[in-house]
């Protein structure tokens, strides 16, 4: 089966180069970074050098001006070799997308070239300790100074991927009253006074994707660093998440593919009752279901990517892709452990890590309950 059916020649060639990089450089390095709980910053930089840190962004700002679909297929490819590296690319992208779509020219000129080249890394800060799914209830304050030249940020952001590692932060904070319309988005740089980080969070997985709390204690942010208008922050945050969810769907597909490939290889090699276990129908049916679900997830996220590239309304479809692909990743990685039997539970094999990595995909960028809610609400309202 041609996995890349429907892609253009350009996209196939780009994928071939990425595949090579992933096979030769990224995949072999993955276990080391995961073990050290270290961000693969050098590999991210190399992706940047290959022109992959700003694929869908304007060439004017250092991007490659390529379809969003190209970016998604690259993410899948990277995720199948080194999941956390794909995640890095995806979060980086999420942080830049709000600026790219809503930022002023001068703000874009200032930050996007550094982000697109991969010289700078981005983070996206919406969640807080007491506001997750209900993100519009966030409490971090951004108070405008009397002369209007700056904002003062106070509060904290929880669960922030790349917290402390990134140079650039897209931060949602409250400039007005309660609810979504009181929220604004800001670009904040690491190193600014009054902006600090909590300790490194200890997580179930995603170890090579460090996460810290962001702490704002009267951090002064110049008014130019407001993205879009005051009160537009929640719209910006959600627009980013629509694209981000497709990114998570692509990462999920890549992760599921890696688990599936490992399961097939193991099932061919492992013998019980005098023959390779892959010859047992019970196992074959499991593998057949895994393969089918992965292919469906791939077709779905790619088709929604095309819808986005064509300028269509893809918000509901992006939720479907994220929901389906991340549930697929969870199921496939769990079954990949099952195919491996006791060996699957051992750290000696990669599938136990894949299973831990899959879990968070059902939680981030809107839990899968929230995705169903987004899809369901549209059904109820139309």
């Amino acid at each position, binding site marked *: 089966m041609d996995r890349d059916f429907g892609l253009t020649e*350009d996209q196939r*060639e*780009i994928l071939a*180069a990425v595949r*090579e*990089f992933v096979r030769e450089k990224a995949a072999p390095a993955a276990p080391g970074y995961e073990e050290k709980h270290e961000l693969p910053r050098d590999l991210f930089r*190399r992706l940047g*050098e*290959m*022109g*992959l840190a700003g*694929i869908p962004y304007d060439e004017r700002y250092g991007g*490659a001006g*390529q379809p969003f679909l190209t970016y998604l297929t690259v993410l899948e490819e990277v995720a199948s070799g080194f999941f956390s590296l794909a995640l890095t690319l995806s979060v980086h992208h999420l942080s830049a997308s709000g600026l790219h779509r809503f930022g002023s020219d001068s703000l874009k000129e200032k930050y996007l070239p550094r982000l697109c080249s991969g010289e700078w890394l981005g983070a996206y800060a919406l969640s807080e300790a007491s506001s997750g799914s209900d993100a519009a209830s966030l409490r971090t304050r951004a108070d405008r100074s009397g002369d209007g030249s700056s904002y003062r940020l106070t509060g904290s952001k929880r669960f922030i991927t790349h917290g402390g590692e990134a140079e650039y932060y897209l931060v949602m904070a409250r400039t007005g009253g309660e609810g979504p319309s009181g929220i604004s988005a800001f670009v904040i740089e690491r190193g600014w006074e009054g902006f600090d980080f909590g300790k490194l969070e200890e997580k179930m997985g995603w170890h090579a994707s460090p996460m810290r709390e962001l702490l704002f204690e009267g951090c002064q942010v110049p008014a130019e660093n407001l993205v879009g208008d005051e009160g537009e922050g929640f719209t910006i945050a959600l627009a980013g998440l629509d694209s981000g969810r497709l990114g998570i769907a692509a990462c999920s597909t890549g992760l599921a593919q890696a688990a599936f490939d490992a399961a097939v290889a193991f099932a061919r090699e492992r013998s019980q009752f005098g023959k390779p276990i892959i010859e047992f129908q019970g196992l074959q049916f499991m593998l057949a279901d895994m393969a089918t679900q992965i292919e469906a997830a791939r077709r779905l996220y790619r088709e929604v990517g095309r819808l986005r590239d064509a300028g269509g309304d893809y918000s509901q479809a992006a939720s479907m892709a994220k929901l389906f692909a991340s549930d697929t990743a969870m199921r496939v990685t769990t079954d990949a452990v099952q195919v491996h039997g006791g060996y699957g539970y051992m750290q000696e094999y990669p599938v136990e890590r894949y299973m831990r990595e899959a879990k968070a995909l059902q939680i981030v960028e809107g839990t899968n309950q929230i995705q169903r809610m987004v899809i369901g609400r549209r059904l109820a309202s139309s």
Partner: protein
Amino acid sequence: MNIVVLVKYIPNPEGTPEMGPDHRLKREGVEGALDPGDEHSVEAALQLAGSDGEVTLVTMGPEAAVGALRRGLSMGGHKGVHVLDDSLKGADVLVTARVLAAVVKRQAGFDLVLAGVESTDGYTGTLPMAVAELLDLPNVTFARKVEVADGTLKVERQTEAGYDEVECPLPAVVTVTAGANEPRYPTLKGIMQAKQKPMDTLSVSDLGLSAEDVKATQEVMGLEPVAAKEAGEVIEDPEEAPGRVVEFLTKAKVI
């Protein structure tokens, strides 16, 4: 600096090669790639050419061989020349060298010709020397470092014991080892731009070569599998081991 790089398209270097009924490697209708060894000479050329130089990639091979040129162009090469001619099927080293030398001669004002040490599929390791000879140019082999200063080529030539420092006038033909550099991956922009770069397709007659020039004088009579290596000897007794090892090395005239 204008540099010509001789590149080869080979059947998938990670796969198992298939042999045809003529006892030659099947090259048509199989997946292939730029010879990984040649990536090092392309990289060396790009580094030497810098921002104002020009890198021309030259290949001889079937239709698909254009893939080798495309890869080199997406890494940053400037133009490609593909010699494509049915009469070249089954060409031996000398014929290939004649063809490539004829292409190089057409590149006005070239300063340097780079090639890999040997191809990953054929392993003869003799082509670059033949090209140098036909062009009447000096030839430096096994370069692990290539520099040009004041119009002179400075090469660190890998040897078994270490390396030699070699100087030679330009133009010259140099073979580059895998240790010379780490080839860059094609960039997204490079891949997109490669399609717009100039690409020449030439036939044998375009090169002014006759049918006689491209007639292979080498014939492959048959194929034999390489004899399997004999299993090594394991000496378990630590008392006995040093003596036996010395004995073995002495016999092999290593010490």
